[in-house]
């Protein structure tokens, strides 16, 4: 009898839940869910066990690689052993070369990213808010966006030579469009019903922008940031391969000349680290700016 009662109550709750207002309330509320992550909880294996398992695969792969190299199955000029890469890293770090190149690359990436996101965000806000700005700018921007930015390489070299400016320009270009489009769309997709609330509560124009429109567009803007971090990384690699005299790209070109596969593997690891760094930056931003959203908030809430 007890089971039947619980079942009936459960069914009633589900009914009530289904009837609860889930009408679109801004972009994020529509995604509201009582079970944010589609994970199943395992009773035998705890969080710790899953964490260890997730590291098991990469560690095994590296161990196998080292083992096969030592046995001579992998020639050093094809791929250096992990231990050799580690030793090379240590040497490059000791004489400071590594940090000079690393710093040069980071500076390029950062400058390009800041310029590109500032420009993309400003354009996105402008076009998002103004139909006139859309008419003036959007079509031209979309045309330029359609050009694969790597195809601009010859022109960039003619304009900037093989100077630092050209490299930063390429990264900037790679960042502008994802940020622009997502900012613009985010602003346009804010629920007009929420803007009616602004009207009946007598919210000022600035209040409307800062309390409703920009925070409402934030999930979309951050999607743009995440995407831009990827394209920026790609642009950086390409830009650095054009006759750089320092930077990670220079290390690669130099290493290729002398078949130093250990250095090449090191630079791959560094680029991967850049990607991971960008990812944690995006995560940090999401946690800070989307704390209200159950999917992004720290911990359970």
């Amino acid at each position, binding site marked *: 009898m007890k089971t039947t009662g619980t079942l009936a109550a459960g069914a009633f709750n589900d009914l009530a839940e289904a*009837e609860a207002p889930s009408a679109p*309330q801004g972009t994020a509320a529509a995604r509201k869910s009582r079970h944010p992550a589609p994970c199943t909880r395992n009773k035998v294996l705890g969080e710790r066990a899953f964490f260890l398992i997730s590291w098991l695969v990469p560690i095994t792969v590296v161990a196998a690689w080292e083992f096969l190299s030592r046995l001579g199955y992998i020639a050093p000029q094809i791929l250096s052993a992990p231990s050799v890469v580690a030793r090379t890293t240590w040497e490059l770090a000791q004489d400071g070369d590594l940090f000079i190149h690393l710093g040069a690359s980071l500076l390029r990436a950062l400058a390009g990213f800041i310029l590109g996101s500032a420009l993309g965000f400003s354009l996105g806000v402008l076009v998002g808010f103004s139909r006139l700005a859309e008419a003036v700018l959007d079509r031209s921007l979309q045309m330029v966006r359609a050009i694969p930015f790597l195809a601009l390489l010859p022109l960039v070299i003619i304009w900037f030579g093989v100077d630092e400016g050209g490299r930063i320009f390429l990264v900037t270009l790679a960042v502008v469009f994802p940020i622009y489009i997502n900012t613009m769309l985010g602003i346009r997709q804010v629920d007009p019903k929420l803007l009616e*609330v602004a009207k009946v509560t007598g919210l000022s124009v600035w209040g409307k922008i800062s309390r409703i429109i920009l925070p409402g567009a934030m999930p979309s803007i951050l999607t743009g940031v995440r995407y831009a971090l990827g394209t920026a990384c790609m642009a950086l690699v390409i830009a650095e391969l054009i006759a750089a005299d320092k930077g990670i790209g220079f290390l690669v070109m130099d290493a290729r000349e002398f078949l130093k596969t250990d250095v090449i593997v090191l630079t791959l690891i560094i680029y991967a680290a850049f990607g991971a760094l960008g990812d944690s930056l995006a995560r940090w931003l999401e946690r800070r700016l989307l704390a*209200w959203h*159950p999917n992004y908030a720290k911990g359970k809430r």
Partner: protein
Amino acid sequence: MGEFSPNSHAVVVRGLRRQYGERVVIDGLDLAIGTGEFVALLGESGCGKTTLLRALAGLDEADDGTIESTGEIAVVFQEHRLMAWLPLWENVALGMNTATGRVLAQNALGEVGLAGRENDWPLNLSGGQAQRVALARALVREPGLLLLDEPFAALDALTRIKMHVLIRELVARHHPGVLLVTHDVDEAIAIADRILVMRSGKIAISLDVARETEAGRGPLRARLLHELGVDVPDAAHV
């Protein structure tokens, strides 16, 4: 109807007209709601109830006629329309001075039974709780006129009954004039002082609930349903 008097009237509407293209939705409508009076507005779908409410709220322009009201006008919509990215107190204090707004918002949240939740996020609330926050957002500005656009329609039956009790308490305390747009005849009888039926863009009938229910709710319910085009055979026994 008499002249508009700021002391006794929450709102007085005269000759209101609203049309979309050729279609006249509100056609010379007159309406007066007293201070502290709870008025429910019934009508078939598409009769212009919501259009009237939106005109009173200032969300739509009127084509003709005058609307005179006392104090602020606050609206609670069918959906809670909370900003998911603002904590509850900021939602309640929206458009108010931040310094005083926070304290007032805390008090208002207490009044709707959500004391201590001021820093919580809207997405952590149930449908009924979210609608109570929307109610707090409306009442915190001590409006002269409170407009309710089917605010309980999307709630489950039990939550709806709790909300009826709550809104009666709050209106008795804050004393705004209230216009409740609803489809639900029983809801109108349960919480309103006066019930209006809208037809062909005008107020067709105005009934005092206390007087009409002296002999029980059945006859009033049957009459209202009849006016809305629903004839229940044994309505007298309901």
